[in-house]
């Protein structure tokens, strides 16, 4: 495995299998009184967040702490960092603090790669979402969630049909998921109005549909993306009501889905817009599971990238 996780492209299929099986192993080990493992004791993980995202930060923080790492939260938003202090200065500060891993969330696409490639820092860089580019650990936790929902498959997704619905253009979750799911053999269909699909999407390993009702019965997984209401001002869609009617997952659509199909959402949800409350809370929904799986997957990533002590030892 590479020493950084900036994009799903950094991972081979074997790496992905290794992360997913490590997450499963961690779940087994920590599913008891031993919630905390000593494997990263003495290591420092910095959460460097240039953008607010309480849920992602808490997920990484919890993951690192369960592995006994020291965690420093460096919230750059609203501090000196967002105004004036550059990525470079911040990186050099973290380097001086002896960070072993930097988990970076940034509003600018490519910021994580920039941090990793620049030579400003020797720590392992983990991308926790960069602009509208990628969010690799989200895709990994989604794959982990899918593998748990379809236990017979053992993270071989060949033939699995996945729909990703909504604002593909601005979604780092979609980009990472397309790469990851296609590596694992799934057939991915993007469903969105043409305005919310990037020019160039035809070069992606996916099928495209503008119509949510077309093949809804055929999907095993329906992943809904958050829609940002301010997109309306740029004419991406005419109104919330129209978007919801055309692309929202409502009760009626939920009932048309396959019996075994699951509903996913990376959160935070706009209930009533891209997803109805009844769909979000239905028995098909694995949205709450995604949160718990996020911690396990991020533990696996930290463990594998930072080369912690063997799990078998610590499990005892």
């Amino acid at each position, binding site marked *: 495995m590479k020493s950084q996780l900036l994009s799903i492209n950094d991972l081979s299929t074997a790496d992905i299998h290794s992360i997913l099986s490590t997450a499963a192993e961690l779940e087994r080990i920590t599913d008891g009184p031993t919630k905390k493992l000593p494997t990263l004791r003495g290591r420092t993980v910095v959460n460097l967040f240039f953008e607010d995202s309480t849920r992602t930060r808490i997920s990484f923080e919890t993951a690192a702490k369960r592995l006994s790492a020291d965690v420093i939260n460096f919230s750059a938003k609203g501090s000196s960092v967002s105004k004036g202090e550059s990525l470079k200065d911040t990186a050099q500060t973290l380097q001086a603090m002896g960070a072993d891993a930097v988990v970076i969330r940034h509003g600018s*696409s490519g910021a994580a790669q920039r941090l990793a490639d620049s030579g400003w820092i020797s720590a392992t860089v983990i991308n926790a979402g960069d*602009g509208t580019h990628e969010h690799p650990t989200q895709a990994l936790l989604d794959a982990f969630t899918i593998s748990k929902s379809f236990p017979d498959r053992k993270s071989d997704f060949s033939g699995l049909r996945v729909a990703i619905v909504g604002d593909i253009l601005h979604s780092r979750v979609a980009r990472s998921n397309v790469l990851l799911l296609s590596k694992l053999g799934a057939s991915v269909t993007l469903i969105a109005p043409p305005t919310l699909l990037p020019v*160039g999407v035809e070069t992606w390993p996916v099928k495209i549909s503008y119509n949510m009702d077309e093949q809804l019965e055929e999907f095993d997984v329906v992943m809904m993306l958050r829609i940002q209401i301010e997109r309306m001002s740029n004419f991406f869609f005419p109104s919330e009501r129209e978007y919801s009617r055309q692309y929202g997952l409502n009760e009626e659509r939920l009932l048309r889905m396959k019996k075994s199909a699951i509903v996913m959402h990376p959160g935070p949800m706009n209930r009533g817009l891209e997803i109805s409350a009844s769909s979000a809370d239905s028995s098909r929904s694995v949205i709450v599971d995604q949160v718990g799986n996020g911690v396990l997957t991020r533990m696996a990533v930290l463990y594998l990238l930072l080369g912690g002590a063997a799990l078998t030892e610590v499990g005892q």
Partner: protein
Amino acid sequence: MTFTLKNISLASGLVTNIAIDGTQVLSIGSEIHGDVVDCTGLIALPGLVDLHTHLREPGKEDSETVLSGSKAAAKGGYTALSAMANTSPVADTAGVVEQVYRLGKEAGLCEVFPIGAVTVGLAGERLAELGAMAQSAARVRVFSDDGKCVSDPLVMRRALEYVKSFGGVIAQHAQDPRLTEGAQMNEGAVSSRLGLAGWPAVAEEAIIARDILLADHVKSRLHICHLTTKGGVELVRWAKAQGINVTAEVTPHHLILTDDLVESYDPIFKVNPPLRTNEDVLALRAGLADGTIDIVATDHAPHPTEDKECEWSAAAFGMLGLETALSVVVKTMVETNAMTWEQLANVMSVNPAKIGGYDRQGVPLAAGSPANIVVIDPAQTWQVDKEALSSKSKNTPFHGYVLPTKIVHTVYEGIFVVKNQELTGLKYE
């Protein structure tokens, strides 16, 4: 001073001697006058002329000054450059263009022609005092809001009409602002993967098409800055076939670099207009070779290190160009046999001087022509080192590239401002 460039090859391939006396070519032929400079194996071309240079003075002298830009120009074989108006203050009055003109004279390393802004403060709303700039000591003939597009069609129409009274030309930075809000790179397959906001070709082509039609309607002169797309080349080709008075330029970097370089997220490749696809690059080369594109212009855009040492979206747009332009054009056009040395002299010297109305520049070498000459060695390659450039900034995308053709001497108004690849410290006064 009187001297002779002995045994030198002209662009035509003819090997001869060029004798220079004062600021003029005295003779071309067997005659030897004054000091002899052996130029065996070297080629003489009329000094290069850049129609699109950002010098940053006044306002951002930490990035470049008229003097440092003139040094870079001389090192790159240029005997004339055209200082874009997007300084601070903007060159939208006779006072500012005269200041830049004077600084150019003081530097004395090449002729510095200020370009005047089309609109006050480059805001695109009110015409700047174009007549006053034309009548100033700087005798401005080229007007541009470069960096910004004159996007209001009525303002553009009036500007095109107005400059007819003194033989001016509007140089348009063709970029529809609404179609490029927040744009970071060429819109296409690469931007879709990288999650960077797209700068679509149509945003350039729509303005080019509109302005061609406007220029035709008011029978004025339009120059298109930095053409980057295949579609833009087609539009200019069509306009020329209709006899519309339009000229176009391409930058060296758009002749060689493509948008997949952005995959590194290294802002050294961030430029406006953006790097396009290989198909566009090939169309630009073909357009330059067949005369659809009249000139190569550098769009030399210096930026301080901190403006490139950051994440992509926070970085400034722009690349250095003066010191690498000739070599890149040789690599892409001459070494590929798309162009001869004579054609290269046309697109890098003769044609830009004509568009700008620069009388003492771009004159084919002959007895009596101004002694503005670049002497190059086509047999030698060199490795670009950003630390070794004369520009105050280091933002060249070609650091580490091995490029063909060394610039050996630059003669400006009969003075060796560069000799044996080094600035001599001499200047023309």
